[in-house]
């Protein structure tokens, strides 16, 4: 009787009050969302306008919604760790060790795979096609599959709170501990299948972005006229295509070890666990740059727009991005200097790690020189950019310190390392995404976010960050290992209490973001973006209406310069009506992608619980869905010139009512766009 595999009634979390309340909150949250949709009578809109949509802008918004939900979840994990460590001196605190281990494992997994990855895919989806003057990504249907596979992975992590337990092996899942001999339950399987299923989505996303940038640019948009955000997406997409197979191989082999008793990474029988660690970081280090390069792109856009000046050193930023992309494949061994490779191997990887700081430094100087002699306007996205510049530089320097193998031997697996990578990832990645969220929000929804709450959010984030992580550098020097559930060293506790206070202030920063969203929706009528260009922007995404029409551009723009939109405004050819409109071919909505994602979710669940018949059924559903879609040669519809004209008429009527330049009233406004000399 194993029709339900390993699944029994004991899988429900009634063994611990904390676990049960976590499960309760998850279930309650889902129920509340469904109740709200029912109350608003919005199921039709949710299903037919959103779930079935393959419009890149809606997919982008859905990605970011997933990311924000998972940010909450990942932050709750962080708060639990900080509060546990703040009180667990000479006592057990409130979290038992097994639970604490699940918390730090899910924190890392969620923040990397299900907060940062969807956030970045969302921003790119929303903006990149508009920046290059395209009507969509190259493969809109595959784009939707990527979204739903990522969501399926996030769903597996969430449901692990309710049914069974999550991994205790950390977000990296090192064997042999993560093998079935030492960790037999379903936890590691939850981690593996969540990561593998969303990884397939990420590979497809990479292919999609790469083809879009190479093949779908507007006339005149040469590679060296691409906005810098698109350049960083280009390199990130290359890294996705070439790095993710390594995660698939490492994770797949661990699945085979656990499920079919193979011996890739076991202690005996010819296993070689260090191979896992090589394969994992062969993906893992490029992944760091997959996350941070698009954030660098956001900073590049924000700093130029709010300094009201052309980006300094465009070519050097492009070259630095390419160099970082290449070098990111040459440094993976610095994650395990202590594996015991020879001094020559360690010094090679130490040297390469130091070298990768050079192009990053070039970028920092380019951003500084962009601000130099600019008229800086301190809107929230700009504040996050300034906070990034200062804080990220400190994190980068501690990274160069760790790049020296002898230092790494001392610091390895201490909280110094934790401080270092949070010090690059929070300002570098998260500040970038939040800046992008606040910068491009008007483009997605047609109104601006409240600036006061955005500013407060920034100050909470940056002050909270320093309080939460600077003590961890000191604790690293004091020899505190990472992932301690409790400890007996009195000198550590004061630092951990400060860190917990910092985490609380970061929590206020997250609350400010939530309040900002609510207040902005309430007051949206007073902050409408009528022109589609709320910040006096420079690149083509500001040429479309806010929110953009389904086709983005009624007539494809003719690009003559870097900063194409600024150039069009300076030449006085912006907002011009074309003589006539043409029919536009657009993809039809379809539920097939969501069905594939749903089947992917159930497939993962079935593999985790060994419900083999269900797994086979899901594969059959996926196969049939793909065949049906691949046999459908009528997946597009034509929007006629008359319909296009109706939408555009409305747009120009709105423009007639709008101020000529939405930034003109700002005290820092430096004047209308004029032609600029190239740098």
């Amino acid at each position, binding site marked *: 009787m194993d029709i339900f595999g390993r699944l029994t009634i004991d899988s429900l979390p009634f063994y611990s009050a904390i676990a049960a309340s976590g499960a309760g909150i998850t279930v309650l949250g889902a129920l509340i969302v469904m109740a709200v949709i029912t109350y608003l009578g919005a199921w039709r809109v949710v299903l037919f306008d959103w779930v079935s949509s393959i419009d890149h802008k809606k997919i982008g918004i859905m990605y970011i919604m997933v990311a924000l939900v998972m940010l909450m979840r990942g932050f709750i994990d962080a708060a639990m760790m900080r509060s546990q460590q703040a009180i667990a001196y000479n006592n057990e605190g409130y979290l038992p060790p097994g639970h604490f281990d699940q918390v730090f494992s899910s924190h890392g997994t969620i923040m990397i795979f299900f907060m940062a990855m969807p956030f970045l895919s969302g921003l790119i989806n929303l903006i990149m096609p508009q920046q290059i003057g395209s009507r969509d990504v190259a493969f809109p249907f595959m784009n939707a599959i990527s979204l739903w596979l990522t969501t399926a992975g996030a769903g597996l992590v969430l449901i692990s709170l309710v049914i069974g337990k999550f991994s205790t092996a950390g977000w990296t899942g090192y064997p042999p501990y993560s093998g079935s001999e030492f960790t037999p339950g379903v936890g590691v399987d939850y981690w593996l299948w969540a990561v593998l299923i969303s990884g397939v989505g990420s*590979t497809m996303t990479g292919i999609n972005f790469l083809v879009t940038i190479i093949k779908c640019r507007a006339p005149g948009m040469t590679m060296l006229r691409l906005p810098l955000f698109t350049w960083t997406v280009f390199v990130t997409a290359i890294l996705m295509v070439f790095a993710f*197979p390594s995660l698939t191989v490492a994770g797949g082999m661990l699945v085979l070890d656990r499920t079919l008793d193979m*011996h*890739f990474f076991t202690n005996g029988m*010819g296993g070689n666990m260090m191979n896992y660690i090589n394969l994992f970081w062969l993906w893992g280090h490029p992944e760091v740059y997959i996350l941070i390069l698009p954030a660098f792109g956001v900073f590049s856009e924000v700093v130029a727009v709010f300094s009201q000046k052309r980006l300094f050193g465009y070519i050097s930023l492009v070259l630095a991005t390419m160099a970082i992309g290449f070098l990111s494949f040459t440094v993976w061994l610095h994650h395990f200097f202590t594996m015991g490779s020879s001094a020559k191997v360690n010094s090679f990887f130490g040297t390469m790690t130091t070298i990768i700081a050079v192009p990053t430094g070039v970028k920092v100087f380019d951003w500084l020189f962009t601000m130099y002699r600019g008229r800086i306007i301190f809107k929230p996205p700009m504040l996050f950019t300034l906070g990034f510049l200062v804080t990220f530089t400190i994190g980068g320097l501690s990274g160069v310190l760790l790049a020296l193998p002898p230092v790494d031997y001392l610091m390895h697996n201490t909280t110094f390392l934790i401080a270092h990578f949070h010090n690059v990832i929070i300002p570098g990645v998260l500040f970038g995404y939040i800046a992008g969220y606040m910068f491009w929000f008007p483009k997605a929804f047609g109104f601006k976010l409240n600036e006061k709450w955005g500013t407060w959010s920034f100050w909470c984030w940056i002050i909270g960050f320093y309080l939460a992580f600077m003590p961890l550098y000191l604790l690293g020097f004091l020899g505190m290992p990472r992932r301690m559930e409790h400890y007996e060293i009195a000198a550590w506790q004061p630092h951990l209490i400060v860190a917990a206070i910092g985490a609380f202030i970061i929590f206020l920063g997250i609350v400010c973001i939530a309040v900002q969203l609510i207040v902005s929706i309430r007051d949206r009528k007073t902050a409408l973006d009528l022109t589609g260009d709320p910040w006096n922007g420079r690149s083509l995404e500001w040429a479309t209406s806010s929110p953009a029409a389904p086709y983005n551009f009624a007539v494809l723009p003719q690009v003559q310069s870097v900063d194409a939109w600024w150039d069009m405004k300076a030449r006085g050819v912006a907002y011009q009506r074309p003589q006539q409109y043409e029919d536009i071919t657009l993809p039809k909505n379809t539920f097939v992608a969501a069905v594939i994602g749903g089947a992917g979710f159930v497939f993962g669940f079935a593999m985790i619980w060994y419900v083999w018949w269900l797994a086979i059924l899901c594969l059959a559903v996926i196969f049939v869905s793909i065949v049906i879609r*691949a046999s459908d040669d009528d997946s597009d519809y034509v929007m006629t010139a008359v319909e296009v004209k109706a939408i555009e008429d409305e747009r120009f009527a709105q423009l007639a009512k709008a101020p000529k330049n939405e930034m003109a009233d700002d005290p820092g406004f430096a004047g209308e766009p004029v032609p600029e000399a190239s740098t």
Partner: protein
Amino acid sequence: MSATTMTVTPQDAAKYEEKEFGFWLYLMSDAILFALLFATYLVMVGNAAGGPTGKELFSLERAAGETALLLLSSTTFGVAAVALSQGDRPKVLLWLAITFLLGAGFIFLEIGEFRGMIDQGAGPDRSGFLSSFFTLVGTHGLHVSVGLSWIAVMFGQVVFKGLTPPVASRLMRLGLFWHFLDIIWVVIFSVVYLPGLL
């Protein structure tokens, strides 16, 4: 894009080109996946853990038979592609069917090989070496099986839709996939079977 029985608008031609380029990128990604499986195999080839090694397990006759079937199937697919460019629907169907049979024969031989090894206690759970062997060769076999399903679907599309531009574009991508698997097999033969036996 090769000539087909129907005319293709420039917009459609651009769409097919995008799809082919995207498919090339997928193949490059897949090539990395196989490269890592090869690297793992080479790391683990000596880790027999007291169990059987390649010398005792591999049969040159069987590997040669598998190679012959797969290489031949690549040639027959090439013939189908030529027929496609001439717009000759019956010929396309005939050569697709022959390609399918040759590929199925390859899978039949491979399953026999795997079963024989498992029956004599040399399954993937016996040692690190055998885990990496089964995973590398099995991943290739899985790809060939997916390719077979794809050939079957395309056979149906050619029957029911004819050699329309979208069908022709899919056949071209299927061809890329099929030849790619051939190349991977040549590397498997040279890296796994030949050194194992010599």
